[in-house]
């Protein structure tokens, strides 16, 4: 189970060993793998995506199965008790949360956190104006707004998320840069183009068709691009 260096770097100065952890927005389980490797006593890997839940479940080594619980759940309504988690990670989570969700997710993560709980938020700074990938992400957002009524991606500056959680009683601990630049590989670009195309397929008429064509064209034109920054912000609840 390869753990990305972004995850190991973000966790390196956090007390993971023996802690009950929550990976908020598990994706394919990169951080779950990192938390298990770092000695977490238990990891709740939460995702609202069934495919991701299966991917995380399959990724966890059989020897770690008794330390891992994959939960398919909404982060705004966690099936976890008050004061039950010692360390929370949100690695690449917030960029897929639309702005109206921020408060309810922050409130819910705070509810399940023990006094003294650590929180690690790893995410992307807004992209510079001249980034080619911005056009693809804008198109992806347009298609998902039309299809689902919400954007697929929002890049929140580190200061915004930091202040959000400070507002819920968390104390800022440290910030570091994980990636500079961020490598948007061909695989990433194709995955984003596919999200845009799937959304565009639900948009009727010529508009949907043109969005699909544009997504394919952009993915081909961009190929891969290294641009922007990924940050890690760590906070802690007063004990």
């Amino acid at each position, binding site marked *: *189970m*390869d*753990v*990305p*260096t*972004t995850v190991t*770097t973000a966790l390196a100065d956090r007390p993971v060993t023996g802690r009950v952890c929550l990976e908020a927005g598990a994706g394919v389980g990169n951080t779950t793998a990192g938390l298990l490797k770092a000695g977490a006593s238990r990891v709740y890997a939460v995702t609202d995506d069934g495919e991701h839940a299966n991917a995380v479940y399959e990724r966890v080594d059989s020897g770690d199965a008794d330390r891992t619980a994959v939960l398919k759940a909404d982060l705004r309504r966690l099936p976890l008790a008050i004061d039950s988690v010692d360390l929370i990670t949100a690695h690449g989570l917030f960029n897929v949360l639309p702005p109206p969700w921020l408060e309810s997710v922050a409130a819910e993560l705070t509810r399940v956190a023990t006094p003294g709980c650590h929180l690690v938020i790893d995410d992307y700074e807004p992209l510079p104006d001249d980034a080619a990938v911005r056009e693809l992400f804008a198109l992806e957002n347009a298609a998902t707004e039309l299809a689902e009524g919400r954007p697929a991606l929002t890049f929140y500056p580190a200061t915004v998320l930091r202040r959000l959680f400070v507002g819920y009683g968390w104390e800022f601990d440290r910030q570091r*840069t*994980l*990636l*500079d*630049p*961020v*490598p948007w*590989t061909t*695989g990433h670009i194709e995955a984003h183009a596919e999200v845009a195309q799937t959304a565009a397929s639900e948009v009727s008429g010529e508009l949907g068709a043109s969005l699909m064509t544009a997504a394919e064209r952009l993915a081909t034109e961009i190929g*891969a691009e*290294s641009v922007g*920054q990924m940050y890690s912000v760590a906070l802690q609840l007063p004990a």
Partner: protein
Amino acid sequence: METRPLGETGHDSTVMTFGAIALNWLEQDGADQLVELVLDHGVNHFDVAPTYGDAELKLGPKLRQHRAEIFLGCKTQKREYEGAKRKLEQSLTRLGVDRIDLYQIHGLEYEHELETITGEGGALEALREAQSEGLVDHIGLTSHGDPQLILDALDRIDDLATVMFPLNPVVAGKDDDEYDYEAVFERADELDVGTLGIKAFAKGPWPSTDELPERDRPYANWYEPVDTPDEIRERFDFAAAQGLTSVVSPGDPKLVAMVLDAADRYDGMSEEAQRSLIERLRHEQSPVPEQLHH
């Protein structure tokens, strides 16, 4: 060009080592020109082996002319006393010099080889004898095999001055022990053993010969190399930033000038940029340690 102490040898090696296998693909005039170019850039550490075609012979003339400026590494693939002694004599003759600064056990791949090398009548005896006779100054080891085996060798051979092993962002992004050359680097560093990095420029294994026959491969490397100035510089910066004593240039002469340029301009690489490179490449295939023969 920046220099760094080569372990406890007392020598400061340039952050780039010239892999003299590149000379094998050139005529003598071209070989002479390439050595002059490398020396003009200040490179002071050369590495050659009898298995590199006629690279030893082609290096000879310029090596003898500039002997004082060059820290010379050579190698043997022999595992037993007699063979190693004979190969050393052959290399001295072919190079036309009376001393090799660093003589290395070449291409360690299997546990049983390590047993033979370190056992009675093993190659190490020949190397230590040559050292006492002044034919060899320091003893080293090279491998692109199992990192755990290299760690074993570091534990068992206490007079190793250097170790040469792969280090690049592709292997750095993989967690399995079979790719853990970083552990080799860390142990060598703790022991103050000089570290020479190979495969820094490996993009991946070549496609199968059905897809790309050997005669159509554009570079004389046994792996597919990165080949643009930016990629070469990025790979050089990464390898040098890990703290290796020196990064060995790739085997194809067409790439050497770009590596020289990268080495000249090396001024560090931030940790976040190193991670960016690892993240970009960590799902790529690595030509080490699967393809062991070169």
